[in-house]
């Protein structure tokens, strides 16, 4: 239960000084739940009959307001969604109608409804220290429905409104800083943080004496702007999520509607959107990624081993990315080993070049860059591995090679050294089987590109002890990854689901469905990338290799693909039979196959909850929020009910945790 937000009023001379406060420090966001709106109602009643000459509204230290309380959103009815919007319109409208100027002093994080509150004020000041100012609604399958779509374009014009309301949320929920907020004209004054409230009060007094004059927004290019914006949204969500389109329509309408008309359109639209599947799935996904993944229920409780030096075996592309990440986040000595010295030298040069790039970007100064570069060393033997506390292998995906690496390592490293593997499909239990101390081996599966993908699969093999698991998890967190806990099984979670989907896709190709058709079918679901493009990125050889491993484990569900094998060899995909699939067929088959595989993952207890699979697909495969990973979508569309007689959401009760 979130702490209750109040609007607290104090008198500062003839200025009403209002604080949005929930009585907690800045780590507990200030939300506008129902009680907050009641408090705002009382505040407005007091201000409406007062003799103040201006009002200043600001937040508790370091926080302005985070907007609506999204914990009130799951399973909301259309009527309640409309009522919620109406309550905001009415209250914020009264704020806008006060007989004296009002100033929002944006002193910290300001999101969603917080931005809308500020927009209903006469003017705004912003602290140069603000780093989180955004309308994240479209990112959540919604749009700003407390007047945001109407007031922002009126203030700064359609181009900036589109950018802030639509484009930024679709670019990984990009946020604005205080200086940007001022630069875009959303705030009227950029002030230093040290005396922010004092200087904002001075501005409010100035405003009471001299009203501001702002240029009228420029709608002359509106037609082009909105056409371009709709094309750009198509490229991102492929029509599968309604929110950005609705937001664009509402912003465009602001040119001709009155504010009251605009409010009314917002209410109609939010009544459709908020209870709808995409918004509900997005809210679910947001909860997984922003809350659950950061305080994961399966986070090991054992104390991790102290890691002071790291070894990386293998110096290929993946190993280099991982070593660079270790270096940047942990700032510990790292030794890299490969069989060929020239590969080692190349890897070292690569890593140092990456550090140089970071220096050039200004992320590090020269001295820090030199320090980081000095931490990494290489060997074609195991020199320098003896005192490693943590060794990750990322050599070629061949069980015998990996077993050999671990066996050699065991001769060199100390008894307490944790051994981790970045294998994507091999059995870690088998890999550790012949070791003296198999209990120190755990999986640490990164996703490509390593620096960007937030997911880490932390894999527990049959013999893995808690301390090894806790160490891998802890190191993963320090790398700023969000781990999920997986029991050792072929392909773990993400690759298993993706490969099952790939198999369906290849089947369609093998039966003569044009690649473009297949691509479009999958894109129509809202997947971030066409399968053919993804396949080129991953590389057909790697994809085929993973399929072969999955085939070894589950031959019936993962038959080998002649088309993929051909692509892996550099040939054209083979046609098995001419029986092309329709787009609908492909979508159905993909969803059913994915549902089936996830169901098996849960029955086999590879992960303990469907939430983990969704987290994996969201953070490791970039699947969209509006599908809720995927199980939310499978539940919403009745696929899970049809296949298993129950939804994924009901699964935790059906499969008791171990």
């Amino acid at each position, binding site marked *: 239960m979130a702490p209750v937000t109040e609007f*607290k*009023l*104090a008198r*500062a*001379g003839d200025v009403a*000084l*209002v*604080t949005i*406060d929930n009585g907690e420090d800045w780590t507990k966001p200030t939300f506008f739940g129902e009680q907050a709106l009641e408090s705002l109602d009382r505040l407005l009643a007091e201000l409406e009959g007062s003799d103040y000459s201006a009002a200043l509204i*600001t937040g*508790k*230290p370091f926080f302005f307001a985070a907007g609506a309380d999204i914990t009130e959103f799951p399973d909301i009815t259309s009527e309640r969604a409309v009522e919620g919007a109406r309550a905001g319109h009415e209250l914020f409208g009264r704020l806008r109608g006060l007989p004296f100027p009002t100033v929002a002093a944006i002193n910290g994080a300001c999101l969603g409804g917080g931005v809308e509150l500020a927009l209903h004020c006469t003017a705004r000041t912003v602290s140069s220290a603000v780093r989180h100012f955004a309308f994240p609604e479209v990112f959540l399958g919604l749009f700003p429905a407390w007047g945001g779509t109407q007031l922002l374009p009126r203030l700064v014009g359609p181009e900036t409104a589109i950018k802030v309301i639509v484009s930024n949320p679709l670019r990984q929920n990009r946020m604005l800083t205080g200086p940007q907020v001022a630069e875009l004209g959303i705030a009227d004054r950029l002030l*230093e943080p*040290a*005396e922010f*409230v*004092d200087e904002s*009060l001075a501005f409010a007094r100035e405003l009471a004496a001299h009203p501001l004059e702002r240029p009228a927004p420029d709608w002359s290019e509106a037609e082009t702007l909105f056409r371009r914006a709709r094309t750009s949204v198509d490229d991102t969500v492929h029509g599968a999520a309604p929110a950005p389109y609705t937001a664009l329509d509402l912003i465009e309408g602001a040119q001709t509607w009155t504010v009251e008309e605009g409010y009314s359109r917002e209410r109609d639209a939010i009544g459709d959107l908020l209870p709808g599947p995409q918004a509900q799935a997005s809210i679910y996904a947001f909860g997984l990624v922003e809350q659950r993944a950061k305080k994961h229920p399966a986070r090991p409780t054992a104390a991790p081993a102290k890691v002071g030096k790291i070894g990386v075996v293998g110096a290929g592309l993946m190993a280099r990315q991982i070593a660079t990440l270790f270096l940047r986040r942990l700032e510990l000595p790292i030794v890299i080993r490969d069989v060929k010295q020239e590969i080692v030298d190349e890897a070292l040069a690569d890593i140092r070049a990456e550090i140089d790039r970071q220096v050039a970007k200004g992320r590090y100064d020269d001295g820090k860059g030199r320090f980081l570069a000095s931490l990494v060393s290489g060997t074609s033997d195991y020199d320098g591995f003896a005192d490693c506390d943590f060794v990750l292998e990322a050599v070629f995906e061949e069980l015998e090679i990996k077993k050999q690496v671990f066996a050699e390592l065991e001769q060199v490293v100390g008894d307490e050294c944790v051994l981790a593997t970045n294998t994507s499909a091999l059995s870690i239990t088998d890999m550790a089987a012949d070791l003296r101390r198999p209990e120190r081996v755990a999986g640490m599966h990164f996703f490509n590109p390593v620096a960007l993908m937030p997911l880490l699969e932390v894999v527990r093999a049959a013999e893995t002890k808690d301390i090894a698991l806790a160490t891998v998890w802890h190191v993963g967190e320090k790398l700023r990854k969000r781990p999920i806990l997986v029991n050792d099984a072929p392909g773990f979670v993400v690759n298993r689901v993706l490969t099952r989907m790939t198999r369906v896709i290849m089947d369609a190709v093998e039966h003569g469905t044009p690649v473009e058709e297949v691509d479009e079918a999958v894109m129509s679901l809202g997947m971030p990338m066409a399968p053919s493009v993804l396949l080129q990125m991953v590389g057909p050889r790697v994809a085929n290799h993973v399929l072969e491993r999955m085939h070894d484990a589950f031959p019936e569900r993962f038959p080998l693909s002649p088309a993929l094998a051909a692509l892996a060899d550099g040939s054209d995909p083979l046609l098995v039979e001419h029986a092309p699939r329709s787009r609908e067929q492909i979508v159905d088959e993909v969803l059913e196959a994915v549902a089936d595989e996830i169901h098996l993952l849960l029955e086999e207890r590879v992960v303990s909850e469907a939430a983990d699979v969704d987290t994996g697909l969201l953070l490791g495969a970039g699947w969209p929020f509006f599908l809720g990973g995927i199980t939310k979508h499978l539940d919403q569309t009745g696929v899970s009910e049809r296949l298993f007689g129950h939804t994924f959401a009901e699964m935790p009760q059906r499969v008791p945790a171990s």
Partner: protein
Amino acid sequence: MQRQEVVFVDGVRTAFGRAGPQGLFWKTRADDMAVKVVRELLRRNPQIPPERIGDVIYAATAQVGDQGLTLGRDVALLAGLPQTVPGFAIDRMCAGALTAVTAGAGEIAYGSADIVLAGGVEHMGHHPMGEDVDFNPRFVAERLVDPSAVTMGATAENLHDRFPLITKDDADAFAVRSQQRAAAAWSNGVMRNTVVPMSVFTEGGWQVAERDEFLRPDTTLEAVASLRTPFRAGGRVTAGNSAGLTDGATACFLTAEETAAELGLEPKMRLFGFAFAGVEPELMGIGPIPATRRVLEQTGLTLDDVGLFELNEPFAVQVLTWCDGFGIDPEDSRLNPYGGAIACGHPLAATGVRLMSQLAYGFGERPDVRYGLTALCVGMGMGAALLWENLGAGH
């Protein structure tokens, strides 16, 4: 290197708040309070290029927590001064800011700096007196000091014992007069000139701290006389005739006289001399008497040459002993014309600069006065006295 004269250019303070959870500053950091007065000073004196500030000297009695991290440097960085400006922290308990000024004056006089920012802060709500102090057991074992020396209220009771002619009635009357004078000062210019309003976050949201919380303009002799005496049964020291536990910050600009001229500043007063003195710790309140004597001797002045006295008022009896020592009538209009700490509060290490700011203002009002005195008593038995020359006096 040239020896230089030292002038006081400008001084400001925050409003002084009641220490503790009920006080206005309870949720405000001490260093942020110091930052506020420093920035106000910079704003009020735009002719002073920040990069020419030679040192930032900040006093605090408790040098931990939000008053730790060698406060002068900490405050300089937080206030946005250039990184090239150094700073340090200093402690002489109640004479902290006063000592920050004399230390800064030393730097200027010696030619080591042309401009010094000096001040003090004490958040007694966050740092109750004596907290975390580990008294050396030798003090007691070897009877180096009387145990009452560490409780300031007890030292005030000791003063009554030692000066039996100073009665509780005298102390109460002095206290009421201090409140009345402060009330008058708040309705004329001095407080508006020297107190900067500050937005502070509180339980009730943001509020503006713009008035001292200890002011009791309507208090009466009867009301003050009826208060209990917490330091001993049948004692004479009460909450009414002493300064409350206070949160507050002060800051001032000192420059070399030539620098002031070069920058077109209008300094209010020149430091004429200063002295510190030690006394019996359990009678720390008499400290200003020998300190005042010493500074008069050093400068060759007599008390008759001095036309304004800004004395701290931790306890009414403490000021009365000084009056007794110099034959000054406690009602004399030269003494604390704007009231004192009994009315506005005494945030230990911050107080010295409040006295100077008020003396500077007083000099402006009294061009006929040539010399003024700021003086304080200090815990563990000390006194401090600074003599100033009025630059507006036309001498």
